[in-house]
């Protein structure tokens, strides 16, 4: 699976490190950005298969990154999964409306579960209708 590229945009050093390590262990190619601007740049540059996007980011908010990605024809097809801290309906709704494929609430999952979600996403990628709100556990 090393040919699957994931751009991870996460400002928290420890969380990003853990997720990155776990994803790499799961054989994904991971590019890490620690603020919104870099995240957008990386996503445009690397043309990843998935962007994992935190919302509360320095320099550029996650929604802005998402909007920019969806605006450009080059990146509009790049799937984005939002990583959020709290189960905020408004944020989730807004994210999905802006074109996110899914969302994951970080604090409600063990990191292993997040990796499972990503794997599940790629397993279902051939079925775009799966892109709907995930049940929170």
């Amino acid at each position, binding site marked *: 699976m090393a040919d699957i590229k994931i751009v991870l945009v996460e400002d928290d050093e420890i969380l990003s490190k853990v997720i990155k390590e776990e994803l790499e262990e799961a054989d994904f190619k991971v590019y890490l950005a620690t603020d919104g601007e870099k995240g957008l740049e990386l996503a445009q540059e690397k043309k990843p298969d998935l962007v994992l996007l935190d919302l509360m980011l320095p320099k550029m908010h996650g929604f802005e990154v998402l909007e920019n990605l969806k605006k450009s024809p080059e990146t509009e097809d790049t799937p984005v999964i939002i990583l959020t801290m709290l189960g905020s309906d408004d944020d989730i709704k807004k994210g999905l409306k802006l074109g996110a494929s899914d969302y994951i609430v970080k*604090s409600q999952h063990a990191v292993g579960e997040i990796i499972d979600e990503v794997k599940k996403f790629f397993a279902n990628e051939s079925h775009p209708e799966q892109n709907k709100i995930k049940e929170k556990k």
Partner: protein
Amino acid sequence: MKIKTKIILPIILVAVIVLSTATFYSYFFNVNTLNTSIGEHLNTTVSSRSHHIDTFIEELIGKIKIAATQENLTNEKLEKIKNSNREFSEVFLVNLDKKIIKSSRQESIGLDCSINDYLVNKKDNVYMRDAYISKINEEPSIAIAISHNKDILIIRINLEILNDVTTNKTGLGNTGEVYLINSAGYTITPLQFSEDTFLKTKIESKNAKSCLDTLKNETEHTEYRGGSAIYTNYKKIEVMGSYHPLSIMNWCILAEIDKSEALAPTKNLLKFSIIRILIILFIFFILTYLIARTISKPIIILSQGTKIIKNGNLDHKVGTNSKDEIGSLSRDFDEMTVAIKKSQIEIDKKVKEQTREIIEKQKDIENQQEAILNVLEDVENEKKKTEIERDKIDAILHSIGDGVFVVDKDKKITIFNNIAEQISGFNKEDVLGKNYLDILKFIHEKDRTPNNDFIEKAFSLGKIQMMKNHTLLIKKDKSEVPVADSSAPIKDSAGNIIGCIVVFRDATAERKAEQIKSDFVSIASHQLRTPLTGIQWVTERLLKHSTALPEKEQQYIKDINLSSKRLSTLVDSLLNVSRIEGGKITIKPEKIELIDFIKSYLTETNPLTEAKNISLKFNTHPENLEILTDRSGIRNIVQSLVSNAIEYTPENGNIEVSVEDNVEKDSFLFKIKDTGIGIPSKNQATIFDKFTRGENAQQVKTDGTGFGLYITKQTVDLLGGKIRFESIENEGTTFFVTLPKISKAKEGGKSFV
């Protein structure tokens, strides 16, 4: 109309009608009779005179016949014949050559004679010539002829001899006249009013025509009754007239009398009749007047007497002596006035008695009034005292730092203190005496629906009611102010609710503080979660990669992971409480297969139950139960109750979870029964309150927050359900949660964590 008039008028009217009818009938009868008698008279006149003329003509015929019997008539003989008759003017013989051959008059011999003229009338071989004027002596004449041998004997007669017959006007008055006309209608006797009329005046009156028509149509007139009529005669005057034909000569005799003269007597008759009527009427009037007076006099006396009595003189006696009905009436009337006077005296007596009684009663009333006034004075004093008390209460109420208003049982505002004025913006004058519902609008902050429940319930339940959180009051200037506090019923000594006192305060500052708190909790929990998540994930990875570590160290790592998870749960709870209390919870119903949902959760708890060797059974009647509710909410409820049951049930205990479908009420019952430590009875009433835990629970689990059941209860409420429990300390607890299968959506916040 007076009685007299009423009697006189009809009688006179009837008299006038009867008399007039009778008089005019007799008048017309008389006129008719007169007409008839005049007609008869005229008939008789013409008839007798025609007879006279007939006789004269007959005699002439006789005389000529005798003369014709003489042979060899000479001139002398002819003269002798002429002289023997006074009316003969000339006697002569005419031969067939129409020449006079012999005559009583020498000069006539040899003259021509128009014999044809004689062929007009004929009787007994005697021919008669109609009236004509003799050429010889120019006198009106007739002539008669008879054959004598081969000649014709003619006698000419002076017609003036008949004038005596016609000019005799006996019985014909001044205007009456009799005259003869020949067959052509010309007069042959003199007329009274015009001279020289012989054969010159043609009469064309009605009678003349009738008479001539009769002559033409009938040949024999042995008897003719004649006829009288009224018509216009030759003088163009209306006349009454009669005629009679003289058939021998084809003449007519006419008698006429002017109508004005003929009917003169009727004029007098009319005059007399009218005078007679007037005299009779006058007498009648006098008589009826006298009768009417006789009848009306006692009535007038009665009427006058009545007027006198009416004016109050009851001693007046009408008393007429007449013996008729009116007299009897007047005497009855007098008796009546006596009776009235008697009863009036009685009434006067009664009135006096009653007046005395009324005066006595009035005195009583005055006494009572005085007593009442005394009482009133006492009351006034009491009132003053009360007012002083009231002023004190008012002073206290107005000095209270919170807004206070009091409504009476009709919901009218009776007290409104200064702070209430300040908060609401209304003045006392705006609100006092008015229904509070019309002035003070309390609304829910969220949906802006009226929120008067806390006042209405104070009335209906008679207990102190707290104002709901997040209540706004609409101020006079239509701006809104958050308010808080309570209302309490006011009861009289008998316990009846007579009003309500409402205390409220401006909660703006409180709301701000609440908002700050809520924001703080939200931010804090977010900020707390990131490092907590970091700890959890790192320890997870540590456990994953450090299988070589000794068991003791591995256990430490597990402890770190568990502690961070607990902390995470605690943060979640805080956040939930903050949202619930801030009213910022979203209820988003979605389809959930409840049985699967519970089973899946219970499976997750397997490690915990196995660790304590607890038997956990799930009994469900329905195999499937689809509900429409908020997923986070139902998860919170199930999770909280199941984890509590596991937590507080000792090792080897039993837990039974069950679901019952209530189709009728469209709800379901979630029941969880454990054999745990139970809830001590003294904690049972407050177990759903925040920060409250069973005393025994604190010994089992020291780190409980006291949020669990509070959040559960709030969640059940938000989903429209009910929660209760049965518990015996040291034996166990059963929770009963009844929830609707379909929950109402609620917007405007965030879902449960």
